[in-house]
C-alpha cells in the first residue's frame, strides 16, 4: 500500500507539474527576477514564435546546471553579477556564443572571448541627503573620510554587489590600503551594515545617515514607485561618483550559453534579440540600466543620472579579487 501510494503520487505530480515542451522553445535559467525580464521575453515569443521557459533561481544556479550535466535542459544562463558569470565559465558549464550580432554590438571588453555577453551595465554609486549634503560629486575614497563618521549607510559587506565593489577597490589599491579602507568605512557607518540597497535611501530620509552606496537602477525604480519609496527618492540625490582619478564601478547583467544547450540556435536568436535596439530599450529602460547597444541613446538611466564613465579595470580582473575582498570584510568585522 505504502509503496504504491508513493509511486502513484510521484506519477501524479509528474503529470500535473511537467511543462509542455514546445517544438520551438528555449530554456532560460536566470538570477534576474522574472518581472524584469518578462516584457522582453514575451515580445521575443510574439516576434519569433519561440517560447521561452524561464526558471528564476538564486543561489545554486551554477550547481544545478553542473549537476544536470549532459542532459540539462538549460540553454541560456542570465546572471546579474560578474562574479557569478566568471564562476560559471570557470566551472566549465558554458560555451562561447558565435553570433555576428554579438560581435558587432557588444564592445570586446564586455564579452571576454564570447564566453559571456553583457546585456546591460549598472553603476554602484553614492547617494546623499538633498537637505544635509551640499556636494554633488564624490570619490569612493572620500567615503572613508572621518567627516562622514556616523553618517554612512551600506548593506552587508558580503553581499555580491559590495563584494564586487571591494574587489575592484582591492584590485586598484592593493591589500593594505583596501583593508584600512574597509575598516574606515565600517567606522563611519551609522548602523550595522544590512538590509537591502533601497533601505539605505529610507535611512537617509529618516535622518539616520547622510551618504550611502546604492546600485543605480534602484534609484530609477524608486523614482517611479507609487508608495512610500517615492518619499525615499525625494529625499536623496545621486552624486557623481568615481575612483580618485578614475571611473565609476560598474557591474553587468549578462548571458552565457550552456555547454549542453539542447536548443542552441534558438538560444543564440534570443541573445541577438536581447541586444537589438527594441529589446535593449525595453529591458534596460524598464530596469534603469545602461544598455550595451550604443545605438540606444537617451536611456532612462542616462536621463535620470547622466552618462557614466566605467572604471577602466576589466570586470574579469575584478572577479579575480572577490575572495580576498570577502576575507578582508570578515577581518574588519564589517558586518558585525
Amino acid at each position, binding site marked *: 500500500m505504502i*509503496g504504491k501510494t508513493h509511486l502513484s503520487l510521484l506519477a501524479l505530480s509528474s503529470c500535473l507539474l511537467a511543462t509542455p515542451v514546445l517544438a520551438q522553445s528555449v530554456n532560460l535559467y536566470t538570477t534576474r527576477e522574472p518581472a524584469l525580464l518578462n516584457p522582453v521575453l514575451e515580445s521575443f515569443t510574439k516576434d519569433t514564435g519561440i517560447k521561452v521557459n524561464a526558471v528564476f533561481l538564486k543561489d545554486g544556479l551554477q550547481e544545478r546546471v553542473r*549537476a544536470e550535466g549532459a542532459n540539462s535542459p538549460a540553454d541560456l544562463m542570465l546572471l546579474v553579477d560578474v562574479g557569478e558569470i566568471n564562476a560559471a565559465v570557470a566551472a566549465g558549464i558554458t560555451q562561447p556564443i558565435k553570433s555576428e550580432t554579438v560581435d558587432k554590438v557588444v564592445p570586446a571588453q564586455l564579452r571576454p572571448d564570447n564566453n559571456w555577453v553583457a546585456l546591460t551595465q549598472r553603476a554602484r554609486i553614492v547617494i546623499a541627503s538633498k537637505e544635509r549634503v551640499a556636494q554633488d560629486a564624490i570619490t569612493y575614497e572620500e567615503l572613508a573620510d572621518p567627516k562622514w563618521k556616523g553618517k554612512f549607510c551600506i548593506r552587508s559587506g558580503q553581499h555580491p554587489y559590495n563584494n564586487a565593489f571591494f574587489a575592484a577597490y582591492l584590485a586598484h589599491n592593493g591589500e593594505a590600503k583596501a583593508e584600512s579602507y574597509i575598516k574606515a568605512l565600517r567606522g563611519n557607518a551609522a548602523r550595522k551594515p544590512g538590509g537591502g540597497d533601497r533601505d539605505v535611501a529610507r535611512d537617509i530620509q529618516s535622518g539616520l545617515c547622510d551618504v550611502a552606496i546604492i546600485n543605480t537602477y534602484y534609484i530609477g525604480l524608486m523614482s517611479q514607485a507609487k508608495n512610500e519609496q517615492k518619499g525615499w527618492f525625494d529625499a536623496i540625490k545621486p552624486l557623481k561618483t568615481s575612483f580618485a582619478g578614475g571611473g565609476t564601478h560598474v557591474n553587468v547583467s549578462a548571458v552565457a550559453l550552456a555547454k549542453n544547450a539542447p536548443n542552441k540556435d534558438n538560444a543564440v536568436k534570443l541573445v541577438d534579440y536581447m541586444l537589438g535596439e527594441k529589446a535593449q530599450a525595453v529591458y534596460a529602460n524598464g530596469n534603469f540600466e545602461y544598455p550595451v547597444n550604443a545605438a540606444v541613446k537617451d536611456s532612462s538611466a542616462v536621463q535620470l543620472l547622466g552618462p557614466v564613465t566605467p572604471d577602466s579595470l576589466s570586470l574579469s580582473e575584478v572577479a579575480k579579487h572577490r575572495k580576498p575582498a570577502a576575507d578582508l570584510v570578515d577581518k574588519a568585522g564589517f558586518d*558585525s
Partner: protein
Amino acid sequence: MSAGAPQSLSRRPPFPWRPSTRLAFATFIGAGLILLPLAALVMSALSLRQAAEIWPHLAAHVLPTALVQTGLLLAGVGALSAAIGVGAAWLVTQSEFPGRSALEWLLALPLALPTYITAYIYVEFMGFNGPLQGALRAATGWRSLREYWFPEPRSLPGAIVIMALVLYPYVYLSVRALFVVQSAAIIDAARTLGAGRGRLFRHVGLPLARPALAAGLTLVLLETLNDIGASEYLGIRTLTLSIYTTWLNRGSLAGASQIACVMLLLVFALLLGEARLRERRRFTISAQPDRVAARRRLGRGAGALAALACLLPVLLGAVLPVGFLIAETLRLQRLAGLDAALLGQLGNALLLAMAASLIVLALGFGIAAAARRGQERFLRLLARFAGLGYAVPGTVLALGVLIPVAAIDNLVADTLRRWFGLEVGLVLIGSGAALLVAYVARFLAIGINGIESGLSRVPPRVDDAARSLGASGGVLLRQFYWPLARPAIAAAGLLVFVDVLKELPATLLLRPLGVETLATTVYGHASRGVFEEGAPAALLIVLAGLVPAVILARTRPSQREP
C-alpha cells in the same frame, strides 16, 4: 533504551518480517531519502583540498561571531517561544476567561506565516515611514531619527522577537495537547492539597509540560537554526549565513559543507538529548486520562489579564502581519489588478504540499510502526537522524538532493536513449519529483515524531493480545495502530503541509522549468526590493496555511483516546 519499547516484545523470538515487507520498504526508502542529501553533504565536505586553507580564516574571523550570534539567537528565540507557548497553553487549558475558546485556536495562527514574511512586515511597520513612527512624529513635531530613538527590528533583539512570534505555536500546540490529556487527575489532586495558582504552575504544570516542551522547542530551535531569509534581512550573522557566504563569495562549497557538517554534529547531539529526555518521561505519555481537567473561572481582573496575555501573541504574530498583507493586496489591486498567474501558483503550491505530506505520512507511519517492533536500535537511530534534514539550511539540503538525483536522472536519460532511442530528458527534476524528495528529507522528522507519539498511545498489551489471537502484522496495523494513532497522524500531516507551503530555498533551487509557487513569487518580488508587490501571494500562503493551523488547534487528542 530499556524504558523504550515494551520489554515483553523484545524478549520474544524475533518478530518475523513476513507481514511487514511494506514496513521494511518504507523504512528503506525513508533511510535512503534522509541519508542521500547528508551523504552528498559529507562527500562534498571531503572533496576539495582548498577547503583546508579556509579554516584558519573562518576560525579567526567568521566562526566566533557566528557562534555567539547563533547562540544568542537560539537562546532568545527558545526562551521567548517557551514562555509564550507554555504560558498560553497553561492559561487556556486551566482557566476560564472571556474569549478563551476562540483564543485557544487563534493562538496557533502565527504558524501559517513564514518567518521571512513576518520579518519584512515588521521592518516596514516599525520603519521610519511606518504608522508608529509616523504617529510619533505627528504627535511630537520631531522630524528625523536623530531627534528620537525608536526600537529597530533589524537587530538581534528584533530578530528574537520576530522569530519567536512566528515559532511559539510549535511549543504551544505540543504543550497544550499534553495539558489537555494529562493534567486532570494530578492537578485536581494538587488543588485539593491546597496548592495556589502560582505553585500549581511551577510545581505541577512545568514539570508535566517538560517532554512536550522539549518536543516543541526542538522544532523551534531547528527552524531558527536553518533560517536564512529572516536572519539575513535582519542583519544577524548566523552560522547558516556563514555557510552561505563561504559557498558564494569564496566559491567554496567544500568549506561551506564542512561548516554545515560541524553544525549538524551539534544538532545531532541536541536531538539525542531530546530523545533521552522524552524516553525518561515516557510514563507521562502513557498514563490513561479519564477526563479533561475542569477549568477554573478567573475573577474579572485576572480574567481580563489572562485574555490580554493570550491575545497579544495573536495580535502581533498573526493579526498585524495579515492585516498588513490585506491592506497591501487591496492597494495593489486598485493600482494594477491582481496577477492571474497567482491561481496557478496556488495550485502548484497546494499540490506539492499535499503530495509531500502524504509521502511523509506514509513513510513516517512505516518507520514509526516498524520502530515499535524489532530492529529497535537501528530504527530509533534512523528516526533521530531524520531530524537532521530539518536542521540543514534549505539550500544546502537542496544541493545535497540535487547532486545524486541529477546523477540518477542522467543515467536514466542516457540508458533510455541508448537502448530505446527515447528522449525523456531529466525525469526526476523535470517532474518535480526531486523537489518532493527534498521536502520529504526535510520534513520526515515531523512525521516520524508525530506518529511515534501517536503510537505511544497504543498500549503494548494491544500488540500482544492481537497477536495471541493470531492477527497478522497487517491487521494489527490497519485495525489497531491506524485508528488509535489517527489524530496524531493527521496533526503531523497538517504540520508538514503548512511547512511545505512556506518552504522557500529548496523550492527555489529544485523546481522544474516554468513552475512557480507562491513562495517563489514572493521571493522574486522581495529580492527586487518591492516586497509589497508579493503581498497577494504572501497572503495566499498565509490563508492556505491558516486552514490547517486552525484544524490543528481545534483537534483535541483526548477525544479519541482508547
